[in-house]
């Protein structure tokens, strides 16, 4: 199988549209006939990443690469960066404001969730420059 590359812009601003990119990716993965569990895990990771890009970084871009053995999702933003990644990875740590909380987010579970649902996760971040969160989901053969 040739690598399939998908790119989705993620708009900043309010949270109303957040999740559109994840939804589109999910539909594409379904059409590719990937296992349900793989699709579910990839969709949750992407959705949490999308929400993060909207509430913490005013948007960004999601790049998805699908191979026969894995899905790689890169969520790239030019936001404020994460000063302490170890702290950000802790369950319950959140700097989200009340707007995000009112919409049901900001529990500090996003990054830990992405780690839990992916097979590999890396965070590249520079304060003042931006953040790239990459998750890999293996496709059982």
């Amino acid at each position, binding site marked *: 199988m040739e690598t399939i590359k998908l790119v989705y812009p993620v708009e900043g601003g309010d*949270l*109303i549209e*957040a*999740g559109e990119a*994840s*939804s589109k990716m*999910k539909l594409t993965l379904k059409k590719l006939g990937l296992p*349900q569990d793989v699709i*579910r895990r990839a*969709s*949750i990771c992407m*959705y*949490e990443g999308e*929400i993060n890009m909207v509430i913490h970084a005013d948007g960004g871009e999601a790049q998805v690469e699908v191979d026969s053995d894995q899905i790689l999702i890169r969520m790239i933003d030019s936001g404020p960066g994460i000063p302490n990644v170890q702290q950000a990875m802790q369950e319950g740590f959140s700097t989200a404001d009340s707007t995000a909380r009112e*919409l*049901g*987010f*900001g*529990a*500090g*579970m*996003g990054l*830990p*969730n992405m780690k*839990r649902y992916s097979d590999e996760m890396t965070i590249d971040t520079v304060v003042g420059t931006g953040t790239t969160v990459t998750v890999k989901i293996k496709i059982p053969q």
Partner: protein
Amino acid sequence: MLLSEIKEILNATVLWGEEHLDREVVSACGSDFMSDVLAYVKNQPVLLTGLVNPQVIRTADMMEMCCIIFVRGKVPSQDMINLAKDRDIVIMTCPKRMYEACGLLYYNGLRGNCDGND
């Protein structure tokens, strides 16, 4: 349990998906916190919530849920209902509060499908 039975038990009104009430489900969950739904829910196709915004529909969609029940008589906007329709998710609203709604369904046999505590 069939969605039609859930409708009966909760005295709920179906806002979209009347024709899909023959769907059968074995577990459900209740939360106003979408982060928690994404973190802890596993194979629970019904979500009871008092939170009303499009992210509720999107979260349910990511979790492959087939029905959302808004408690405390909350009614979502037409945009939300359209989103749910597009995602093939049945939408109901019921006058009961969260605790009572969950309790009634549990009492009638709809469990939480949790290994640990919930």
